[in-house]
């Protein structure tokens, strides 16, 4: 399968009060087209830092990150912004959206900003509405963002991340601020997207969430200590078994 993300010897160091803090140490991994990879680990293990470093949102100290064949460490801020706009999708734990725009406007915002997306404004709106319909939130298209629930908002964030048909979606604890039922719904949408071919890398603490992924990277003190592979998740059946096996592996890893 075609490699979409390739990380080699990635190091990230923060200096806090003159003390060097090595958050990521020689991290190596790859993500192929259509994969859904979860990054797990205890708090402070460097999960979010890894996600932001490989997606070009944060600078790295050493190493190499290739996205769709481009070494993003060599790209300028302008090129990185272009890459994030056209090739990557982002979902955050906090459902950040512009307060003065409606839900639909927030979703189509990256499409309107993209130069690569040459569709007309009408087509962009149509594609935003299609995504909302697909995720079951078309009713809130014209609502203000504070008029909708957290789950609806997170699904809207997924729509926004999908609007420019990215090669890969990065999600930082996408269900972290949601209740169980809503969390399941959001994960179902993400797995559907993944099954349609979009690669996903997500950070999570939740075994139920990670169990829906095809691969789990376990991070300890900035190192990938282990990797667990699962089959493609297609239906509810077998989810319990996936969770149990993942849980066992995590226990072995010291979770």
């Amino acid at each position: 399968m075609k490699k979409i993300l390739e990380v080699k010897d990635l190091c990230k160091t923060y200096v806090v009060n003159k003390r060097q803090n090595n958050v990521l140490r020689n991290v190596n991994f790859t993500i192929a087209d259509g994969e859904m990879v979860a990054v797990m680990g205890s708090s402070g293990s460097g999960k979010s830092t890894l996600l932001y470093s490989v997606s070009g949102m944060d600078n790295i100290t050493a190493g190499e990150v290739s996205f769709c064949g481009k070494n993003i460490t060599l790209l300028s801020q302008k090129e990185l912004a272009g890459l994030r706009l056209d090739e990557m999708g982002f979902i955050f734990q906090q459902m950040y959206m512009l307060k003065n725009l409606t839900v639909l406007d927030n979703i189509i915002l990256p499409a309107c900003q993209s130069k690569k997306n040459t569709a007309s404004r009408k087509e962009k709106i149509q594609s935003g509405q299609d995504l909302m319909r697909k995720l079951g939130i078309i009713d809130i298209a014209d609502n203000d963002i504070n008029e909708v629930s957290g789950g609806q908002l997170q699904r809207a964030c997924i729509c926004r991340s999908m609007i420019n048909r990215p090669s890969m979606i990065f999600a930082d604890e996408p269900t972290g601020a949601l209740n169980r039922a809503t969390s399941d719904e959001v994960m179902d949408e993400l797995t559907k997207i993944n099954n349609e071919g979009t690669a996903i890398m997500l950070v999570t603490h939740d075994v139920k969430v990670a169990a829906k992924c095809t691969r789990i990277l376990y991070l300890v003190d900035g190192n990938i200590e282990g990797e667990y592979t699962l089959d493609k998740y297609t239906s509810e059946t077998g989810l319990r078994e996936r969770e149990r096996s993942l849980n066992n592996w995590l226990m072995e890893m010291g979770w």
Partner: protein
Amino acid sequence: MYLRILRKDLKRKRTMNLILLIFIILAATFIASSANNMVSVVTALDNFFEKAGVPDYWFAISGQKENKRFQNFAEENNYKATTQELIQILPEDVKINDKKFIYYNSLFLSQLKNSTKIFDKNDKEITKINDGEIYITSEIFHSSKNKFKIGDTIHINKNGKSKTFTLKGNTKDAMYGSAMMGMTRFMISQNDYNYFYAVKKTPFYSIAIYDDSDFLEKFNKLKLNTVFHADYNGIKNTRIVDMIVSAVMLIVSICLILISMVILRFTIHFTMNEEFREIGVMKAIGIKNQKIRGLYITKYFSIATVGGVIGLILSYPFGKMMILNCSQNIIIPNEGNYFLNIICAIAVVVFIVLFCYFCTRKVKKFSPIDAIRNGENGERYHRKGILHLSKSRVAPVPFMAFNDILSGIKRYMTMILIFTLGILLIIIPINTINTLRSDELLTWFNMAKCDHVVGEEQIFNFNNNNKDIVNTRLQKIRTYFNEKGIEADVFQEIMFTMHISYQDKTTSSLAFQGTGDITPDKYQYLDGSAPQNKDEVALTYFIADTIGADIGDLVSIKNGETTKEYIVTAIYQSMNNMGEGIRFHPDEPLDYRYASGGFGVQVTYHDQPDYEEMDRRKGMLKELLPNGRVYTAGGYVNSMIGNIAGSVLQDIKKLILIVVLCINILVTVLMVKSFITKEKGEIAMLKAIGFRNSSLVIWQMLRIGIVLLLSTLIAVLFSTPLSELSVTPIFKIMGAKNIKFAVVPLEVYVLYPSIMLAVTVFASMLAALRICKISAAETSNIE
């Protein structure tokens, strides 16, 4: 514990606390200095006149016979009068550093004896002048025509007697210090004065009367032929420039205070809103409301005190800088007013603490969770977004900028108010200056509209050929143009001083008669119709009000030795001598022996030449009359009343522009910084989803640009009524109550708003560059 929380807070919220501190410093500086300046300029002229000993009445007469008549009259009535003899010299008699002295009004040599007090540039009274030293008035000293500097040599040659003086300094002279007075004096020592005294021909007496009871009534009945006369208010009214400057400073001060109040309210409100989350946390862990309020009041009190003290210190140099232009000609009192600065600074601190006290009152009402939600309980009754990206064709960045403003107009209200006030602060003085420079101004000085005016010294003799002299000169110009194939009306205003009576009231007034190609209908009138025959006159509303006459009344006017009755047919306005004026029909045979002078020769071309042709004809006039100065209509009035719209107001205009631009820059930088602090999450998110730094900077710049354009629009809409409201009263004092402001659209609506826009948007760009430092990854760190 309290101190530790405070110290942590000050450190952690450094940007917001710094913004608050800077705004408090600004507010304290503006309020303290402006309040001080307001008091100073309002009382300055009266204080100055009191210090100088300006008399209740002042008049000048020429000739021993008239002086004798007055002295007898004063003695009979027991009036306290001080008489000072002056030596009249001509500007041609004076050389400055061997160069020509450029001055077009009456000039006298004077000594300190029997004079009103004069002061040097440092407001110290001049009590002694050494031989060979000379002082000139500040008005002359600062005029750009001669470029005086201390130490210059001034050579005076009068009737064969000459002496070279060294310029010792400039004086603040209450009586002779304004251009509007139409005369100035050089102060020299008694010995030097005596040296020139021997050669003077006609004695010229300046008489000051210190009696405000029934002097004027009796004096008017004496019907003395005065060269000039004015009461205390009349002398005061010659200080138009100082009054306009003071009025402009007053408007500037009021605007600065308003701006400061708006800034303070915004900043405190903004920073207090930021505190709510922490207030909620403190409430949640059980800290009492009183303690929480105490903590914030202590914090705001500390910042306000530091800001107040710094602002107080800065208010002294800032106030002095602002008032510098006002204090060139008059003494601006500042002793004792420092106390006002302190009171204002304390008021700013009290205002902030009280505001904080009232804002934190909400603490009691809120549950911890309400406070954590920034004081909002989630209920909203109106939509936030006004526009829809999905329904618009605008690109996302300009759309976001528009939508942000329309969705949260309250948030931008501070900026709109400050920018609007700033633009008004520029537009109003510019409209005033342009009005004072316009050709229209000529019609407010007892003159008819014309294309060119030739100013030339004209001395009338006490004989009957004055009218012939005038007509010969007019004919010379007329013939010259006719020979060149140019049709033109050539005419001139001749000025008299006459006594006018209606029933039991009498007053003295300037009177005018047009000579040459002029008819009474060419002048402007407020009411009634132009005099149609020689027995009819028009009066200014000032003179009509003084004697209680109206249109249709029969007034009696004394011209020289003869008194005649005239019907008043029209009322008009004039700024000569603060509103004096009687207009005679050109056919009325006035006694030209009593003419006191003439305005410049006016020329109106029949073919309405364009700008280039006008310039060519100006050259032709100069060629014909090498000793004359050729002006446009507006230029002539300016030369006559002392370039009122010249250097002083131009300097003030520049100062206001600089102050307004500085305020705009500061407000923009601080507002943009506070917006960015508040919108950090949204900015990080936008960066994460692929917005470039440049797009986000443009987003911020556009918001400021749109706000400024909106403010410009509001300011432009309000500028004309506000100009009329604030400046018309000043013109009214000067004698013109019906003012049509001369608006130069390109300057007022394009040039200055463009400068403001460019500078403000540039400032917003510099402030918005901070966006580049916000990392997209910060979406995970934002609370």
